[in-house]
């Protein structure tokens, strides 16, 4: 998926800054202030969205460390027994989640891109100068993959209005 939120936000900031804001009526102070705040907010979102996953993971790791620490210190306090039990359950879930949350989204994205490069190179090597009718089984694998992948990409951008029959497409949440 090439049309990612980071690109979209970047282009919105640019158009608001270069085209829309200069065209706002200078006497409409409310509109000017809110246009500037919208640009500022989007700049923060753009700057931070790539770190959001890492931020959440870091927050969870330190909360778990605090939970460990407090559980140890409060273990002999009868008044805290109920809360300690609840915390222990959540900390156990949290530790499991942290253990599974290992790969950074940027690494995932880069790996996808790399794999696409290598798949493309292999397809070119397989088909160059060949009679494509003799490669039907390989062709089927490529088009079957394309059908599923492109379906997800089309649905991702459904809101842009390109689809002639949007109601025929399943919700994205049921596919990924």
């Amino acid at each position, binding site marked *: 998926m090439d049309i990612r939120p980071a690109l979209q936000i970047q282009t919105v900031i640019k158009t608001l800054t270069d085209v829309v804001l200069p065209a706002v009526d200078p006497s409409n102070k409310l509109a000017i202030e809110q246009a500037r705040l919208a640009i500022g907010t989007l700049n923060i979102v753009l700057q931070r969205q790539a770190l959001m996953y890492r931020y959440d993971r870091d927050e969870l790791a330190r909360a778990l460390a605090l939970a460990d620490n407090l559980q140890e210190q409060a273990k002999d306090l009868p008044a805290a027994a109920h809360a300690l039990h609840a915390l222990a359950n959540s900390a156990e879930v949290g530790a499991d989640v942290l253990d599974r949350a290992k790969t950074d989204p940027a690494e995932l994205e880069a790996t996808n891109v790399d794999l*696409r490069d290598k798949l493309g190179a292999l397809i070119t090597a397989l*088909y160059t100068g060949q009679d494509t009718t003799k490669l039907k089984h390989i*062709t089927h694998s*490529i088009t079957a993959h394309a059908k599923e992948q492109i379906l997800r*990409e089309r649905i991702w951008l459904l809101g842009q209005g390109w689809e002639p029959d949007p109601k025929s497409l399943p919700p994205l949440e049921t596919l990924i």
Partner: protein
Amino acid sequence: MPRLDKNHPTHEWIAQLRERFPCEKEIDRVLTRKLQRRAGPPYSPLALTTLIEGTQALIRSELKGDFEIIDANWLSGGASKLQMVFKLKWNQPGVGPTITPMVLRMEPSESVVETSRLCEFQIIKALEGHIPVPPTYWADEEGKYLPYPAMIYGFAEGVTKPTASSSNVTGVGTMIPPELRPVLGGQFIKHLGIVHSFDWRNAGLSSFDEPALGKQAVEWQLNHWERVWEEDANEDVPVMRLAMAWMRNNMPPVDHISVIHGDFRTGNFLYTEHNNEISAWLDWELTHLGDRHEDLAWTTKTVFGHKAEDGETFLVGGLAPLDEFIAEYEKASGLTVNRKTLQYYDIFNSFKSITICLATGSRAARNGKTHQDVLVAWLAGISYGLLDELRTQLEEVL
């Protein structure tokens, strides 16, 4: 091995691409220039006064006598070029003192489609008097007077779609009402026939390369657009590689070299609503010499038309059913249509439009190179529907 950094092209990489994908000299020039400038700064907003001053300088270099630019303003429309509308108060040769509405059409730093202003200028001038096109005035081929290469032509009155209708960006999805279809459709087909049968050999098209009959024309086009894919694509797409391989192995020969508009469709002509006459054909930047089936397959693409009221009959450009369109075209042009070649170019056009929208569009927007990155990035979204169409097209032939 580190991934190739296409945002900072090396001399070696550029040279490799040029050698690997030989194409028309003017196309090679503009694509090479694009890569050489890529690592430079993004597009920064230009003041209208900058364009007015540049336009004045260009006109002054071409014209003796006083003139004045009045009522200058930005003009929207299209996804690739900056446009300024203005009026020129001047002593027009052969006419005398007059005020002429004109349009300045200038490239941004890097465009969703990199093309030659010289080619565009020459082909519009060559077709004046043959089909409705804006009158051409002056070109700044290298950006000597303006910040980027530009041309000036006449402002044509008209609309791209009925005033009351809606569409997505660049006129895609325009609904043509039933009463307009015969009158606009007839003109549309007639004009396409004239373009394809136009005698271009003595028409002043010095910037165009002439392909030989046979497979050279299609080979140049494959080289052109595969090169653009290599230059611009961020993520590779397996089904695009499959398309490239199939197209190389199945190139159809051409029996007549025609002028190919390259984007001949509803949304790229203006018509005047008071008499429903096409007043101008626009966007000649993709024009080249080649196989008429390329234009025909583009014009008849699903995305540029819609269904009739019966919910079943597809109308080419929203104007006429496909069989009727083809039959009328053959009459108008005196040229035949080969359905198998049409199918080939349908696949080629899917590949080309995905390359423009997805590869070039997303890279130009990501690098902040255009005056309307938000539109270019939005337009890239159409690529996934086109990719699915390409997949089904390939399944039919493979």
